[in-house]
């Protein structure tokens, strides 16, 4: 250890720690075993005086590495913020006293637990260094917004309002997108508070379209540069230093630099020709998009049917046409807002064609999400729109108008309905570029053994399917030209925690390219994405990470000499942050990196590490747990818990009084993806009896905060069984679980289950 490192420990006796544990012994553990050069106790470390004590030790005594033994690292984060030193924390409150019973019998094991956590924290901090920003870049206050519809315009306006400059790129010759074509909009508001049920109460109605005002605001803003008839033909770089080629239809190209990007490329209309059975060739059967044009044509007057210009006196809306269906050529998902649209359009008829105009909405399941939702539906009922639950089998025609044949699902009988006009509720198709991971995703659907064999076939299929899809961003990334898809062509996003986040750092998706939504939702979405884009640009400027490790200044470093060029890191990085240099060594792209450590966990020769998180900083924690010998009957269970969900769940479990096994030693990891196989083999070799790994849910409905970290970990751990067998150990000693932040009862139970396994298979033979 270099001489300029100075280690100081602090033990808090507050929050009951001092009553339950022998603080003197903890202090001794820190100095004797943990080799802290100093260690002091304080009765409430998080108060002003306690924090000052730490501050003085840093400022006056020159401490460079501090170990705080107090509450969970997730508590008192603001009080214990010392960015100028390396810091580790021993979780004595949630991790020990709150998760152990306060009984005489438990006292000994509780103290052992606390001593271990102190040893671990001391070992960890010894292998940490204070991260410093790379200084690679500065703040770039320009944001690129791709797509000039409501979403793109809102993102541009919000970004401009926050003082950042925007370049807004629109493929067509006009701003406004689809929304500019709508006759009226779905209302934004619910009924006023206190409006009860009733047939004559004031309920929200369709409102005038104000997209024109939005266009004017964009044009008037001196912070927004609009590029019409333009596309983005090349995007390279990383957050804080993107470079984009904006090419006009006529071929001239301008290159601009950006701090971050918002992709708001919107949606395409579903092609109804696949729905011949619904009479899509009949002139009086129109799509919901076409109806808006008819309504616009009518102005305030009655809407006329296309075949002969007759005023419509009866209209039937066929909901969910070709949506949420497994049939060939249909959409496998539901657009969600089609019912709101139909209510809105039915009200056009009530308003313009007279109260007597028969409007029937044939639904299968009626959904009215959004602010006005249920009240808007009531509004439809109030105006005598007829809602009928039925499954349409066919739309036939004889002369003008059409006949809708359906099964009435309430009355369970076949019914026919004649109408002047039939409107099909068609779904929204995302306007995204080709999926860079289409091949990987398709392969993952296959059993492990078949993947290699099917590779060529899958590649061919994917190539054929994506040949007609235009790229939106034309990313100059090793990992493909566009944003990865989540499902059904919608761009990736962590739908629970970080809705706008994509797997390409600094690029945010908003609006219907992310999921189907209406104008109001798209505006909310755009605002969120704009704020994220600004945050990404600012963070990149400071050299710190984007979510979820916002503020983390460390970034992966690797020892080139040791690297075998196996490319596991390049392939497994969920965020495409790693490129290759000319000599085919990995090249880490700091500001694209989200600091998950998946590359670190992937590297077979362990050459990747962070200043504050490395193979050693965790490996040493593992090694510094006291392993009692076999006859002590005190097994040790290593718990590697993801800091995003599993670790908070364990903290929460302790807070709510759940017990956690006295044999467990919990180490938080950034992501299960960062778990190195060497930690597993080392801990097995040093006598742990069991290992419990807890990561986030993986797969299609993933909740992993780093998208693919837990998937990668699961793939790697599939091979652990063999390793254990070569050591003559039972494979059940190592388990991987998917844990959600709400699993506060389950998480401690999973650890308890390992206790039972150990009881069954016996203690590890590797204890010394």
């Amino acid at each position: 250890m270099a001489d300029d490192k100075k280690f100081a420990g602090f033990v808090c006796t507050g929050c009951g720690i001092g009553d339950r544990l022998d603080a003197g012994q903890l202090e001794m553990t820190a100095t004797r075993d943990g080799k802290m050069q100093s260690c002091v106790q304080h009765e409430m470390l998080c108060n002003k005086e306690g924090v000052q004590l730490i501050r003085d030790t840093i400022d006056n005594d020159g401490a460079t590495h501090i170990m705080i033994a107090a509450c969970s690292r997730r508590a008192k984060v603001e009080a214990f913020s010392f960015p100028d030193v390396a810091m580790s924390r021993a979780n004595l409150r949630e991790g020990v006293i709150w998760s152990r019973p306060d009984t005489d019998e438990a006292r000994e094991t509780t103290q052992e637990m606390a001593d271990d956590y102190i040893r671990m924290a001391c070992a960890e901090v010894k292998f940490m260094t204070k991260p410093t920003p790379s200084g690679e870049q500065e703040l770039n206050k320009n944001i690129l917004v791709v797509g000039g519809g409501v979403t793109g315009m809102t993102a541009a306006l919000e970004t401009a309002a926050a003082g950042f400059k925007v370049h807004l790129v629109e493929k067509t010759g006009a701003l406004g997108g689809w929304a500019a074509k709508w006759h009226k909009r779905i209302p934004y508001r619910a009924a006023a508070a206190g409006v009860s049920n009733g047939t004559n109460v004031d309920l929200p109605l369709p409102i005038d379209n104000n997209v024109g005002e939005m266009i004017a605001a964009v044009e008037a803003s001196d912070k927004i540069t609009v590029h019409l008839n333009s596309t983005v033909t090349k995007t390279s770089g990383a957050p804080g230093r993107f470079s984009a080629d904006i090419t006009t239809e006529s071929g001239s190209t301008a290159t601009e630099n950006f701090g971050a990007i918002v992709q708001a490329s919107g949606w395409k209309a579903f092609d109804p020709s696949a729905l011949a059975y619904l009479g899509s060739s009949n002139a009086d059967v129109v799509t919901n998009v076409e109806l808006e044009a008819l309504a616009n044509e009518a102005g305030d007057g009655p809407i006329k049917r296309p075949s002969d210009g007759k005023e419509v006196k009866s209209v039937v809306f066929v909901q969910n046409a070709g949506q949420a269906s497994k049939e060939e050529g249909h959409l496998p998902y539901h657009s969600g807002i089609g019912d709101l649209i139909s209510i809105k359009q039915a009200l056009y008829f009530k308003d313009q064609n007279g109260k007597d105009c028969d409007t029937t909405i044939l639904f299968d399941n009626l959904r009215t999400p959004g602010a006005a939702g249920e009240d808007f539906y009531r509004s439809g009922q109030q105006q005598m729109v007829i809602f009928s639950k039925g499954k349409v089998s066919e739309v036939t025609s004889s002369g003008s108008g059409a006949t809708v044949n359906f099964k009435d699902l309430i009355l369970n009988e076949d019914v026919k309905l004649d109408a002047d006009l039939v409107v099909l509720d068609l779904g929204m198709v995302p306007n995204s570029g080709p999926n860079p991971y289409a091949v990987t995703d398709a392969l993952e659907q296959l059993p492990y053994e078949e993947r290699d064999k099917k590779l060529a076939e899958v590649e061919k299929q994917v190539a054929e399917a994506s040949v007609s899809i235009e790229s939106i961003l034309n990313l100059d990334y090793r990992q493909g030209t566009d944003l990865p898809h989540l499902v059904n062509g919608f761009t990736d996003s962590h739908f629970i925690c970080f809705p706008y986040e994509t797997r390409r750092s600094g690029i945010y998706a908003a609006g219907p390219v992310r999921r189907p939504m209406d104008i109001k939702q798209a505006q909310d979405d755009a605002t969120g994405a704009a704020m994220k884009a600004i945050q990404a640009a600012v963070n990149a400027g400071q050299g710190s990470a984007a979510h979820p490790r916002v503020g983390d200044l460390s970034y992966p470093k690797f020892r080139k000499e040791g690297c075998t060029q196996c490319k596991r890191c390049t392939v497994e990085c969920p965020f495409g942050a790693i490129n290759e240099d000319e000599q085919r060594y990995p090249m880490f792209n700091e500001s694209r990196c989200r600091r998950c450590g998946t590359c670190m966990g992937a590297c077979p020769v362990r050459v990747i590490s962070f200043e504050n998180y490395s193979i050693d900083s965790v490996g040493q924690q593992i090694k510094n747990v006291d392993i009692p010998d076999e006859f002590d009957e005190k097994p040790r269970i290593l718990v590697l818990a993801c800091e995003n969900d599993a670790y908070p769940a364990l903290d929460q479990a302790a807070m709510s009084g759940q017990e956690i096994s006295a044999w467990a030693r919990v180490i938080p990891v950034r992501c299960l993806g960062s778990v190195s196989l060497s930690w597993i083999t080392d801990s097995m070799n040093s006598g742990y009896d069991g290992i419990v790994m807890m990561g986030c849910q993986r797969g299609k409905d993933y909740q992993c905060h780093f998208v693919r970290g837990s998937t990668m970990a699961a793939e790697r751990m599939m091979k652990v069984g063999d390793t254990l067998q070569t050591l003559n150990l039972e494979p059940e000693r190592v388990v991987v679980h998917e844990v959600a932040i709400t699993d506060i009862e389950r998480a401690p139970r999973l650890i308890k289950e390992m206790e039972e396994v150990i009881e069954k298979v016996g203690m590890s033979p590797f204890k010394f």
Partner: protein
Amino acid sequence: MSDMNTAMVEKYRNSFLKEVEANVEEGEWVKMCMQCGVCSGSCPLGPHWAHPPQEIFMMIRAGKREEVLASDSMWMCTSCYNCIVRCPRELPITHIMHGLATYAKKLGLVPKGQATAEFSQIFWNNMMKKGRVNELKLGLSLYFKDGFGQGIKNAMANQKLGMNMMKAKRMSAAEFFGGHGIKDVSGLQKMIKKAEEIEAAKLEANK
């Protein structure tokens, strides 16, 4: 088909929902039903009728005029009010049921021999005479509604009940001869007439 019925079919050719709204007491609420089915689930007699309220409301919206008006479903309502209490949309379901029954009666569409309808008529006639219900006569008219022979049979079967009621002074044989009424029968009849006028005016206003 009664004349009124023919007229109504003509008038509301397109929308039975509109007809209900205009002619049935509280009928304007039917369109507010969201088909959740809570009413049908709450109805103690639900499984025993042809169409529970949710279905009746759907049928009205689907334009099934004949099936609704000639149905005996609304006659099965016991006025327990469970449905009203539970309907999330606060539909006055019980009242709509009675409104539908009344309307069907007006149009002459009540199924023949519908027991509730017959009882109601007997009850009404009985009550209107003296302003109070003459239990003895009510019982007798019920027994004999299907003819003399059947009446005797019914009376024999319920003999014990009748005797007990007499003993408990709940029924008096003297009532057979005229029976006693309220003080101001004509006043009551005026009141009822007024109520009918109010109802008619209300329905007129719906049109």
